C-alpha cells in the first residue's frame, strides 16, 4: 500500500523518510517544491545533482533520490562549482540556509553569482540557526531574539535577493512556504535559467525562531507570511504607504547572459576541436 504521493515516491528515498525536521518546520514544503519542479521539467534523475552545506536545510539532499552531496558548512556552492565545471551535463542544484548561504558561505554565493555559473541555489530562509538551537543569523530581523541575541539582535539583515542581484545572478526570486505553488513555479523558472539562479524560500521555524520571538505555532507563522508579504506585481499597483514594511515576493531578475561553463568550453573547444 502506498504511503505517499507519486511525487514523493518518484523523487525521494522512501526508506529515508520521514525527515528529521521539527513539527511545523517549513523546509519540507520547499523540498517538495524542488521535487515537483524537477518532475515538471522532466529532468533525467541520473543527471540531477543536489548539493548542500550544513544546517537544517542541508539535510534535504539525503532524502532526495538523485546524485546527492552533503558538504561542509557554507561551502556547497564551491563544491557545486567543481562538480558543474567538471561535468556541465549535470543539472546542479544547491540547497542552503540563511546562515549557510549568507554568513559562512556568503563569499561563495556572491562569486558563484558573479561567474553566472549554471547552478540553481535554493535558500531555505528561516531567519535563525536552527540546527544549533536558535542563534541569530544574517536574516534575523533587527531587534529579534536569538539564543546569542538575548537582549535583541543589533545586527541588520541581508536582503538575499538584492545581494544576489547585485552580485550578478541572472535569475532571482523570493517566495514563501505559504505561497507554496508560486514558490514551486519560481524554482521551476530558476532551473530553466541557464546561469546562476537564486530562489529565496522564506520558511518557518516554529521551534526556535517562532517560540523565542512569540510568533505563534506553525499555522500562525504561515498566516503571518500571508499577512506580511506582497506580490511584486500587486505591490506595483499599490500606493507606497500600503507597501511599506511588507516583504515583496516574486521574480526580481530573469535575464539571459553568457554562462561560465559555456564560456570556458569555448576555450577548450579552440584547442580540442581542430579539424
Amino acid at each position, binding site marked *: 500500500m502506498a504511503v505517499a504521493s507519486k511525487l514523493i515516491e518518484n523523487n525521494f528515498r522512501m526508506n529515508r523518510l520521514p525527515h528529521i525536521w521539527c513539527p*511545523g*518546520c517549513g523546509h519540507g514544503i520547499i523540498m517538495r517544491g524542488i521535487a515537483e519542479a524537477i518532475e515538471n521539467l522532466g529532468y533525467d534523475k541520473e543527471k540531477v545533482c543536489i548539493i548542500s552545506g550544513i544546517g537544517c536545510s542541508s539535510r534535504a539532499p539525503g532524502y532526495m533520490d538523485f546524485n546527492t552531496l552533503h558538504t561542509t558548512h557554507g561551502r556547497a556552492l564551491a563544491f557545486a562549482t567543481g562538480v558543474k565545471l567538471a561535468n556541465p551535463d549535470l543539472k546542479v542544484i544547491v540547497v542552503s540556509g540563511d546562515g549557510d548561504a549568507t554568513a559562512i558561505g556568503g563569499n561563495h554565493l556572491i562569486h558563484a553569482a558573479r561567474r553566472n555559473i549554471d547552478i540553481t541555489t535554493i535558500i531555505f530562509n528561516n531567519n535563525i540557526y536552527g540546527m544549533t538551537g536558535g542563534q541569530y543569523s544574517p536574516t534575523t530581523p533587527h531587534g529579534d531574539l536569538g539564543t546569542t541575541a538575548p537582549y535583541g539582535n543589533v545586527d541588520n539583515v541581508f536582503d538575499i535577493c538584492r545581494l544576489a542581484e547585485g552580485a550578478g545572478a541572472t535569475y532571482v526570486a523570493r517566495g514563501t512556504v505559504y505561497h507554496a505553488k508560486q514558490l514551486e513555479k519560481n524554482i521551476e523558472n530558476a532551473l530553466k535559467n541557464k546561469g546562476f539562479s537564486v530562489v529565496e524560500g522564506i520558511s518557518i521555524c516554529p521551534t526556535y525562531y517562532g517560540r523565542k520571538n512569540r510568533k505563534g505555532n506553525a499555522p500562525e507563522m504561515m498566516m503571518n507570511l500571508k499577512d506580511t508579504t506582497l506580490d511584486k506585481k500587486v505591490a506595483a499597483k499599490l500606493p507606497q504607504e500600503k507597501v511599506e514594511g511588507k516583504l515583496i515576493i516574486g521574480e526580481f531578475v530573469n535575464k539571459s547572459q553568457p554562462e561560465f561553463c559555456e564560456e570556458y568550453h569555448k576555450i577548450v573547444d579552440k584547442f580540442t576541436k581542430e579539424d
Partner: protein
Amino acid sequence: MSKKKNVSLKTNQAWCKGCGICVAFCPVKILELKKDKIHITDKEKCIKCGLCELRCPDFAIYLEEEENGQ
C-alpha cells in the same frame, strides 16, 4: 492543484508530526488532529483542492489517483 474527481485524500499518520498546518488551511474544514495525528472528519466534503498536500511539510497527506477497479 488537482481539480480531478478521480482522486481521493489519503493520510500517512506515521509521517504526520501534528503541526496543524493542513488543518488550519483546509477550506472546507474537514481535517483535525487527534493525539497529534491527522484525521479526516468528513471525506465526502473534500473538494480535492490539494492545499493540504502542497503545504504539508511531512508529505503525510496527499491526493491519490484512484486506479480503475479500485
